């Protein structure tokens, strides 16, 4: 990419037409690599994957591959597991994102003030983000296990639970495990983005407000929140979509069980694809999830647009 430009640098005598052509092409030269990459490596396989939703693709069956029309979607409509997975996805995503966000915001507010040892603290509390997700799942599964982990005993002593059993083993409580693990792992992400957003708010705004006698809480409500809101909307949007699609922790910690009680749509896709090796049906579930997330994204984006219009 660079060589073409260097040549024109050494030859200033280009015709006007040529130069205009070169300037017109310039934006495309910068953006072409990323465009080509996502089209060939992501969007082409995505369309192939979407076409599987209308075909019978069984990995171990060489005679599969025929078109089945909307059969998969009809099957999906009657699929009890899928409906349960939809509800679980809602709980899993809402709880994970909301708690990651709230704890991340509190942490960011704490780190936004100068104090001795702040740098060290910041490095330590951001560390979970660097841990590979399957290792996160393994570690927390271990911590929740009454034989090798301390948590059940502690929770029982604190009277949070009635017994010292593994909460991952009971259908009613199993989803709590992956949610806690995802909070542990995800707090740094929101802390980092919130901290960055906080630090870009001009300090004199707060000074002016405190001269006017506004309380810390009032300052937070009338300066911090409104200025943070546009960034937050985008971050939360991307994060929600990402968490909804994120199956690692559930697959590692509960494998969707016990008795499919923790199956989210994403982990259900994983199960159908890699346990049942039915890629056609898995693709049709993925297509539905894609559409739902798309609707959600459009809703958030138009909401943000509305708020920003009202502000200006």
């Amino acid at each position: 990419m660079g060589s073409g430009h260097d040549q024109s640098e050494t030859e200033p005598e280009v015709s006007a037409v040529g130069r205009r052509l070169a300037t017109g092409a310039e934006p495309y030269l910068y953006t072409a690599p990323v465009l080509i990459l996502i089209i060939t490596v992501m969007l082409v396989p995505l369309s192939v994957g979407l076409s599987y939703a209308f075909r019978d693709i069984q990995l171990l069956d060489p005679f599969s591959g025929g078109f089945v029309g909307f059969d998969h979607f009809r099957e999906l409509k009657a699929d009890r597991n899928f409906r349960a997975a939809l509800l679980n996805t809602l709980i899993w995503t809402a709880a994970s994102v909301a708690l990651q966000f709230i704890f991340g915001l509190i942490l960011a507010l704490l780190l936004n003030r100068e104090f001795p040892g702040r740098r060290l603290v910041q490095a330590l509390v951001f560390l979970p983000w660097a841990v590979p997700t399957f290792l996160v799942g393994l570690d927390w599964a271990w911590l929740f296990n009454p034989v090798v982990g301390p948590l059940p005993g502690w929770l029982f002593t604190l009277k949070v639970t009635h017994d010292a059993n593994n909460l991952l083993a009971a259908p009613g409580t199993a989803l709590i495990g992956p949610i806690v693990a995802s909070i542990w792992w995800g707090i740094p992400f929101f802390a980092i983005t919130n901290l960055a957003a906080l630090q870009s708010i001009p300090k004199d705004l707060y000074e002016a407000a405190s001269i006017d006698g506004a309380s810390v809480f009032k300052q937070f409500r009338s300066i911090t929140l409104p200025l943070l809101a546009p960034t937050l909307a985008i971050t939360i949007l991307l994060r929600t979509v990402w968490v909804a699609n994120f199956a690692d922790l559930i697959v590692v910690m509960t494998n969707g069980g016990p008795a499919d009680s923790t199956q989210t749509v994403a982990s259900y896709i994983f199960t159908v694809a890699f346990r049942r090796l039915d890629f056609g049906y898995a693709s049709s579930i993925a297509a539905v999830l894609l559409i739902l997330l798309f609707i959600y994204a459009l809703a958030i984006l138009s909401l943000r647009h509305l708020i920003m219009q009202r502000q200006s």
Partner: protein
Amino acid sequence: MTIRMLRRTLYWCSHYLLIGLYVLFALFPLYWLIKVALTPNDLLYSEGIRLWPSRTSLEHFRFVLAHSEFPLFFRNSLIVSSGTAVSVTLISGAGGYGLSRFSFRGKPLLVALMLVTQMFPLVMLVAPMFRLFAPLGLTNSLTGLVIVYTAFNAPFATFLMQSFFDAIPKELEEAAMIDGATRFGAFRRIILPLTLPGIAATGGFVFTAAWSELLFALMLNSSSRASTFPVGLLSFVSKFSVDFGQMMAAGVLALIPACLFFLAIQRYLVRGLTAGAVKG
């Protein structure tokens, strides 16, 4: 006056208390990982819930380093993650600059395409990708993984880089261009050095993401010669029966590079993001 001082003391007490709780919450699971890795096999279950075993040993670490394929997996992961980090920064740096500085026909479409890539479960790409990659010799190859990870991380990294470039005034390179530099020359000599923290942050972010990826590493590379670390950790379980001590020891070793990398870049991550965060 005294009431104000009291309130201030109270505030800082609760501030430090909360900070302490956060640090404890963040570090305890990591501590447990290390504790399990250091516990000898015979005490693994009998002293499972003790905070520190009565005896520790490095046997798990020794075994993992000397008798397993761990060093190979480690090397593969290092190659794949650094390769991905370098290629994503190059591609997204260029793309982010293009998005930040120009408005051109097809730009909204490009942005929309990049957003779409963030929307769907990547699981659905596994089967088609295997079919497309196998004839090209890109399965069971580290290059194939680098390509896949580069594509997965490029859209987000491009948005990130765009926000870094947005924070640098256009006038800087316009001045250089008036002085006779081409735009690319101005980009290379003036803008690039200014965004180095942002680039470091993006690179580190991508490195850790590639370091942890499991699904595609598992599906595309079935031979152990081309396995990355997470896959190796899984194979541990089946090959040597489930030896959790060794597994945790390997896990602890795997954490080291990712954590070092992360500790080095986390400051830039905040500083870099600050630059363009509240652009809306």
